[in-house]
């Protein structure tokens, strides 16, 4: 069964890739979807076995063949279906199926439809290799593979426009991450003599907390995670990646690929457990990323950019949780985030589709009348991401905050701030898009239409999942969720459960009653922000400023209520100011320009080198002799 999970998407890739051009268009999409769905069904079967099996059993190990076996090297092509990979595989194939389904309709007009579906299938295959591989090499294969697919899919619509710079930037950032990952892998091999998870973690288990080598490996692997999961300072590629088709953004850049970094850290939990310093670093970087991305998200007007920054921000939350040692919470948030972020992206795609490829929210407004299903599902997604009580996001965020609270108060407060800002910018986007009046001058309001059933069906399914997704892992005081929740699936209780997961028992995050009250008291605060945003963007129907005239903020607002003004002065304006500053100086200037700078430096050095290569043999001879002189001088004296 395990082999089918992996082989089916590959088959889909090959069939569509090789023969797709001769198939009729209608078949191509369904074919691609069917293969992923088959993979999903296979995953479900295996997962059922896993759930019903006794602790410590039910995981499947499949060794295909030996990849390298020379000298001391021994690397197998092998797959392992354990509880962690099961959860990831379910997300990948499940959400993947829905997004394939959605794409059939969304991409229907595209000439390269078969290419699109074959790339998507290839992506699913690589992602499955990443999470199902039983050793670090397999993970690395998948890691590189998803990078390639991401590159191909981002550029899918770029046909004739040159995107050299953006691509190069994304490239350099991802390669810096990969470099860290590779060096981490080398260190692992050097110290533990194997790449196999079980062997490595067994050896790691004998080390002591704080061992330097563990810290080094943990940090290097985290650099890899930074690149893939878009953390500071390697995050700016993700917003740029939104240039790809929307289903791609939903699948790769929100639900699956970007969570590979989280998977990596959870998988290497044994190493991170011994490296408290590395965890601390992860936590602070996650916090910084989450805050900064949220602030930047406040001022974005492109609907996909808002979602992109919110993805970065949510990934930051997951890393905060990992830094606290709350692996279950992080994974839980991966799951719920996959639901609601895929929902939001697909909803945004539906809006873009309905608006004839308009992505600027300032050009929208009042869409709720025209697109009721999209509106409703988008509302659910928005509520879920903001942590509205009893929706999926509420439970996962609650769990993360519980962990943070018992770990570090300062981080808790700052994280909370970030969560508030999330509420702010998500609802801002929501209200501006769906409420108010229609503001577009290019297309008349009549032309705006609801998307076809093929697109709304995945939205509805995802909306349901976003509502009930929290049930996967109810907090303890609400009783156990499905089969005892994720804790049950993942944790180690000494009773011979399957060991590769969480070798060290996860600490339980007990909080006092007072603190529970504190958490409970947060709900009104959320509501306050909701009211503020509602007031500004719905009641007063403020339109976000164009990028050009961001100065006259006060003029836009009618001077209705004093309380509004005070809210604005005390709350909105400072935040927006910070956001502006961040967008303008930190994101644009510091990060973008520093990475552009790397690109430019490459360019500069490259052109310098090519100027040396001036075509004149006399110069070449002199260079050679000078080189020879230097060598002699270096060695003889």
């Amino acid at each position: 069964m395990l082999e089918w999970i992996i082989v089916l998407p590959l088959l889909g890739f090959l069939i569509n890739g090789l023969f797709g051009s001769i198939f009729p268009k209608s078949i191509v999409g369904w074919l691609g979807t069917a293969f992923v769905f088959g993979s999903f069904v296979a995953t479900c079967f295996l997962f059922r076995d896993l759930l019903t099996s006794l602790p410590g059993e039910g995981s499947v190990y499949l060794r295909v063949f030996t990849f390298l076996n020379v000298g001391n090297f021994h690397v197998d092509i092998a797959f392992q279906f354990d509880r962690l990979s099961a959860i990831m595989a379910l997300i990948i194939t499940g959400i993947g199926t829905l997004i394939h389904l959605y794409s059939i309709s969304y991409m229907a007009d595209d000439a390269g439809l078969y290419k699109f579906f074959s790339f998507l299938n290839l992506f699913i295959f690589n992602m499955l290799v990443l999470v199902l591989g039983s050793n670090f090499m397999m993970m690395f294969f998948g890691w590189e593979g998803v990078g390639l697919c991401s590159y191909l899919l981002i550029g899918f619509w770029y046909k004739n426009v040159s995107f050299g710079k953006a691509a190069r930037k994304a490239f350099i950032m991802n390669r810096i991450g990969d470099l860290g990952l590779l060096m981490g892998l080398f260190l692992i091999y050097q110290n533990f003599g194997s790449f196999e998870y079980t062997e490595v973690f067994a050896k790691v288990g004998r080390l002591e907390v704080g061992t330097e080598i563990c810290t080094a490996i943990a940090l290097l692997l985290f650099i890899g995670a930074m690149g893939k999961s878009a953390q500071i300072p390697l995050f700016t590629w993700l917003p740029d990646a939104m240039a790809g088709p929307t289903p791609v953004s939903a699948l790769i850049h929100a639900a699956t690929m970007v969570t590979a970094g989280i998977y990596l850290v959870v998988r290497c939990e044994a190493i991170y457990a011994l490296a408290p310093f590395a965890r601390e670093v992860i936590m602070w970087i996650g916090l910084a990323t989450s805050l900064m991305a949220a602030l930047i998200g406040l001022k974005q007007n492109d609907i996909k950019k808002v979602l992109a920054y919110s993805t970065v921000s949510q990934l930051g939350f997951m890393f905060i949780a990992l830094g606290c040692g709350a692996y279950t919470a992080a994974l839980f948030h991966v799951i719920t985030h996959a639901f609601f972020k895929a929902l939001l992206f697909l909803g945004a795609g539906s809006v873009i589709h309905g608006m004839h490829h308009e992505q600027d929210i300032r050009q929208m407004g009042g869409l709720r009348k025209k697109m009721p299903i999209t509106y409703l599902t988008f509302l659910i997604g928005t509520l879920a991401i903001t942590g509205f009580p009893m929706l999926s996001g509420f439970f996962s965020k609650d769990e993360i905050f519980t962990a943070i609270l018992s770990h570090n108060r300062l981080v808790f407060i700052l994280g909370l701030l970030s969560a508030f800002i999330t509420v702010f910018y998500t609802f801002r986007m929501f209200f501006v898009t769906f409420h108010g009046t229609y503001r577009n001058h290019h297309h008349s309001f009549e032309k705006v239409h609801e998307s076809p059933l093929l697109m709304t069906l995945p939205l509805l399914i995802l909306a349901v999942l976003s509502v009930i997704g929290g049930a996967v892992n109810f907090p303890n005081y609400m009783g156990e969720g499905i089969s005892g929740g994720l804790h049950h699936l993942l944790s180690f209780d000494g009773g011979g459960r399957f060991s590769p997961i969480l070798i060290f028992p996860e600490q339980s995050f007990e909080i006092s009653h007072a603190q529970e009250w504190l958490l409970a008291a947060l709900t009104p605060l959320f509501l306050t922000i909701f009211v503020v945003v509602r007031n500004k963007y719905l009641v007063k129907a403020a339109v976000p400023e164009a990028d050009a005239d961001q100065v006259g903020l006060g003029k836009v607002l009618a001077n209705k209520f004093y309380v509004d003004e005070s809210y604005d002065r005390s709350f909105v304006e400072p935040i927006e100011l910070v956001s502006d500053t961040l967008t303008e100086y930190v994101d644009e200037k510091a990060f973008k320009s520093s990475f552009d700078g790397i690109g430019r430096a490459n360019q500069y050095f490259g052109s310098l080198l090519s100027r040396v290569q001036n075509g004149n043999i006399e110069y070449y001879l002199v260079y050679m002799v000078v080189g020879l002189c230097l060598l002699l001088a270096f060695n003889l004296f």
Partner: protein
Amino acid sequence: MSSLTIFNQLEISHYIYLSTVLFSIGLFGVLFRRNAIILLMCIELMLNAVNLLFVAFSSYMGDSDGQIFVFFIMVVAAAEAAVGLAILVLVYRNTRKTDVSVLDNLKG
């Protein structure tokens, strides 16, 4: 034999210095001149400096390998000169020049 008596007075360092000087003169010529034929000649000069050094070592150590090597170097130099001059004539046919600095179309 008079040459033997002279040989007995010589030190190997004299020949090392002499060959190095000759080699450097050839090298200087290669760097300094622009006419491809002269460049070729300077390279021949470098090869001769090496030959001299080989012969000197060979005589000093009483080992014939060095002199055989010189023999092979001469052989190769002849073949190289033939091919080199053929290339030069070819270039001359197309450009009417033997100045190496004229040919700088390939660069970057």
